[in-house]
C-alpha cells in the first residue's frame, strides 16, 4: 500500500511523517511519532481517551484521518506539559487525586484545557457538560470535576 507524506506541526515542532491513507491521527501519533500519551480506548469516538487539540479545537484523534492534519497544528498531552514543572491542570489533577488507573487522564487534561481556554471560569454544570465526551470508569468524576474547578479558581 502506498504511503502519503504529511507535513504538520505537532506540539509546536514541525512533524513530517508517512501514513497509510486510511490511518487515523491516533495511530500516527502513537505508532509513528511514538507519542503514546494519547490513549486508545474505543476507536470510535465514544471514550475521549484519545483527545487532542487540532488547531486549538478539541477532537477525538481516532476520528481524524492522519492525512487531514496536513498543514495543521496538533497538541497532545506531551505538548501541554511545560518545559519545567507541570501545567496547572496536571498539578490540580495530582493534588485532588483526580486519577486512579490514569488511562483516561491525558484525555481529560487535554479536554479540560480546551474548556478553560474558551471558558476560564466554568460552573460545575459547564464542566460536566464539556467533559461528557470523556469516560472515566474509576473515579465517578467527582475529583476530576473538582480538579478542573480548582484550576479555574487558581487562575
Amino acid at each position, binding site marked *: 500500500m502506498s504511503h502519503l507524506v504529511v507535513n504538520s506541526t505537532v506540539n509546536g515542532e514541525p512533524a513530517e511523517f508517512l501514513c497509510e491513507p486510511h490511518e487515523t491521527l491516533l495511530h500516527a501519533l502513537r505508532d509513528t511519532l511514538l507519542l503514546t500519551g494519547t490513549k486508545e480506548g474505543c476507536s470510535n469516538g465514544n*471514550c475521549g481517551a484519545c483527545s487532542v487539540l487540532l488547531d486549538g479545537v478539541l477532537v477525538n484523534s481516532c476520528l481524524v484521518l492522519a492525512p487531514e492534519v496536513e498543514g495543521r497544528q496538533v497538541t497532545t498531552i506531551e505538548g501541554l*506539559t511545560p518545559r519545567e514543572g507541570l501545567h496547572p491542570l496536571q498539578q490540580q489533577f495530582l493534588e485532588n487525586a483526580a486519577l486512579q488507573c490514569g488511562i483516561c*487522564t491525558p484525555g481529560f487534561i487535554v479536554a479540560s484545557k480546551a474548556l478553560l481556554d474558551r471558558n476560564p471560569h466554568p460552573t460545575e454544570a459547564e464542566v460536566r457538560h464539556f467533559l461528557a465526551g470523556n469516560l472515566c470508569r474509576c473515579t465517578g468524576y467527582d475529583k476530576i470535576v473538582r480538579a478542573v474547578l480548582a484550576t479555574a479558581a487558581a487562575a
Partner: protein
Amino acid sequence: MSDQTVFKVIGTRPVRHDGVDKVTGRALYGADVRMNGQLYGAMLRSPHAHARILSIDASAAEALPGVKSVVTGADLPAIADKFAATGEGAINLRHLSGNILAGRTALYWGHAIAAVAATTQTIADQAAALIRVEYEVLPPILDLATAMAPGAAPLHPDVVTNELGEKGKTPSNVAEHFRHEKGDIAAGFAAADVIIEREYKTGTVHQGYIEPHSATAQWNADGQLIIYCATQGAFGVRSEVSEILGVPISHIKVIPTEIGGGFGGKVSVYLEPVAALLSRKAGGRAVKMTMNRTEVLAATGPTSASIIKVKYGATRDGRLTAAQVWMAYEAGAYPGSPVGAGSGVILAPYDIPNVVIDGYDVLCNKPKANAYRAPGGTNAAYASESALDEVARALNIDPIEIRMKNAAKEGTRRADGPIFPRIGFVETLEAAQHHPHYTSPLERGSGPRRRGRGVASGFWFNFGGTSSASATVNPDGTVSLTEGSTDIGGSRTGIAMQFAESLGIPVDQVKPQVVDTDSVGYNDATGGSRTTFATGWVVYEIGQKIRTELIARAAKMLETEPGQVSFENGVFSNGAMNNIPYAQVAADLDKTGGPIVVSHSMRTKGEGTAFATHIVDVEVDIETGKVDILRYTATQDVGHAIHPSYVEGQIQGGAAQGIGWALNEEYVYDKNGKLLNAGLLDYRMPTTLDLPMIEAVLVEVPNPKHPYGVRGVGEVPIVPPAGAIANAIFDATGVRMMELPMSPARNLAALVAAAAPASG
C-alpha cells in the same frame, strides 16, 4: 492494630508517586509496549453464538505477504481439569484454555477461533479475515429459563450438575446447585406477621475498564518466554500461561505494565498465551496483540445476568424471622459465575435466625463470566434490599431503622457459615441516619418530575492472600520499595505510606515500584480489595525490621547498645547525651556493616469485612422514564483510611459503577446470540453529565487484625447502589422496578402498566 495512636503519614493526602508519569502521559500501559522487530496479532472470532467448528482453512491467510504465523485451538495442548485461584474466585484451567482459543465448538458470539501475526496490523487484520471456517450452527441458549429447563441441550458434554455436593450422571447446563441453611425456615415464616416474596431479574454487564486488553509476548529459541501485559496479577498470568501452554513457570517472565482499569476483568488471561504461541511459530519475534472495544465487550468480562427470588418474614415490630433465597446466575460459556459470592452477600448485613439460600451456576452461550468488583454482590443486594424496603413499608418502619433493628454485629453467624469479627455495619447506618442528606426534607418535585429517596446497605467479604516485597536503604536515605502488587488505583502510595509510618521516614523518601515476576516474591493478584491490606502489612513488617537494624547501626556509631537508642523525628538518640541524624546513618551503612536489604512475605489472614450504606435522591420523569441522580451519599466502614482521598475515590468510583449498572448498562443480544451493543455508544456507561458529586463518608472502625487497622475498601461500594436507586424510584413513583437496568424504556413501560386500569 498497633497501639500507636498518633500517625505522621497515615491519614495524610500526599501526591501519588506515579502521579507525574500519569498526568504527563509518560506512564506506559499495555498497548504502549513496543519491541524491536515486533509483529502485530489479530484474532478471528466466531460470528455465531453456538456452532460446531468443522474445519479451519488458513491457507489464504498464510499466503498473504507479511503473515508470519497462524494458530488455532489445535495448537493448544490438551490439559486436564485443574482449578487455580485468581484472587477473585477459582478458575478451571481446562476451561480457561478453551476460552482463549475455541476447541471443537464456538460457545459465544466473539469466541476466539484463530489468530494471525503479521508485520503490520493492517496485514494481520486482512489475514484474519481470510481464514475460512466451516461451522455447523447450533441453537444458542441465551437465558436462564431455557438453560435450566428439563431436557435442555447441554453446552458441554462433560459438565454435570454438582448437586449439593453430589455429581450428577447426565450432562447439564446447571454446573452447580448449592444450599446454605441456618435455623428452621418453616418455623421462621410461621412466626412472621408479614411475608414479602418477590422475583428480580438483572442483565449482563461489563467491567468497562477504559484500557482494552493488550499483551506482547516473545518466545525465544532457548524456551524463555517474556510477556508484557496489563494485568491485575502478573504471577497469575505466569501460572495460567504455564498451565495452558505446558511451559515451566521458570521459563516465563511476566512484566506488568501500568494498567488502565480492571475491576476483576483483568485477573485472568485472554491474549497472553495466544501471543506467545504466535511468537514461537514466528521464530521468536515478539508479537503484540491488542483488543479493540468490540472484542473487549464481546469476549471478556462480563458479569452475570441473574434471576433472584427473595422471601422475607418479619414480625410486626420489624424483626426479620426468616429469609429464603433462590438465585441463578449465568456463568456464560464455562462454569464459574459469582453466584457463590452473591449467596454470601445477599443476607449478610442482617442477623436472621432462619435462612435457606439455594444457588445455581448456569451455562449459556454468552462470554465466560469474569470477576467484577464485589462479584455477584450488586445484583444480589438489589434483590434483597428492594424486598427489605417492601417489608419496611408494609410495617411502616423507617428504612434505616429496620436495618438497624436487624443489623449483624460481632458474633453474628452468616448463613454461609462464618461468624463476624468486629464489624462496622451499625456505624455506617448511624452515619447515614445522622447525615444532613438523610435528615433534610426531600422536595417532592412537580408535574411529570417525581422525586424520591432510597436507602440500601451492602456487604463484601474482602480477601487477604499472599504478598511479598523487599526494601533497600539507599545512601541518601531514600528507600527503594519493590513490590509485586499491581497498582490499579494508587496503591503504590497507600503501601509506601504504611512503610514510611512503620520505619519512621517521610513518604516522599520511599521509592515504590511494581516489578516483574523474576524480581520479587510471589504476590496474589490485586483483587478482593486485598492490596492495601496485605501488601501494606508486609511492608509494615519490613519497616519494623529495617527500623530495628538501623537502630543497631546507630548504636554502633554512638558506641552504645541498641536498647539505649531511640528513633524519633528522623534522629537516632542515645538519651540526652548524643544523637545522630537518619541521613548520617543511611550514608554510613557501608562502614557499619553493609547495605540494609529486607524482604518479607506473608499469607495474610484477618482481612476484616466491609459494610456500606448508601442514600440516594432521584428524580423520575414519568413521561420518559428517565431517572436523574440528584444527590448521593455513601457511608462505609473503611477500617482505617491510609490515604483518605484514594479511599473516597474507591467509594465514588464504586458507587458510579453501581449507578451505571442500575440505570443503563446491559448487554443486548439478538435471538441468534449476537451482541448488538458491543461499543461504548450503546453500552452506555455513566458520563460526567449522569452523575452528581458523590459524598463519601468514611466511617473508621479499625480492623483489629491489621497493624494499621486497614480493611479493604474497593469493592463494597458497588454493592448498595442498585437497591438504593430502586427504592428511591419506588419512593418517587409508587412503582417497584423488578428488573435491572432501570432504563428509561423499562421504567416507562412499568409506569404505564401501573397507571393502566386493572383489566377484568
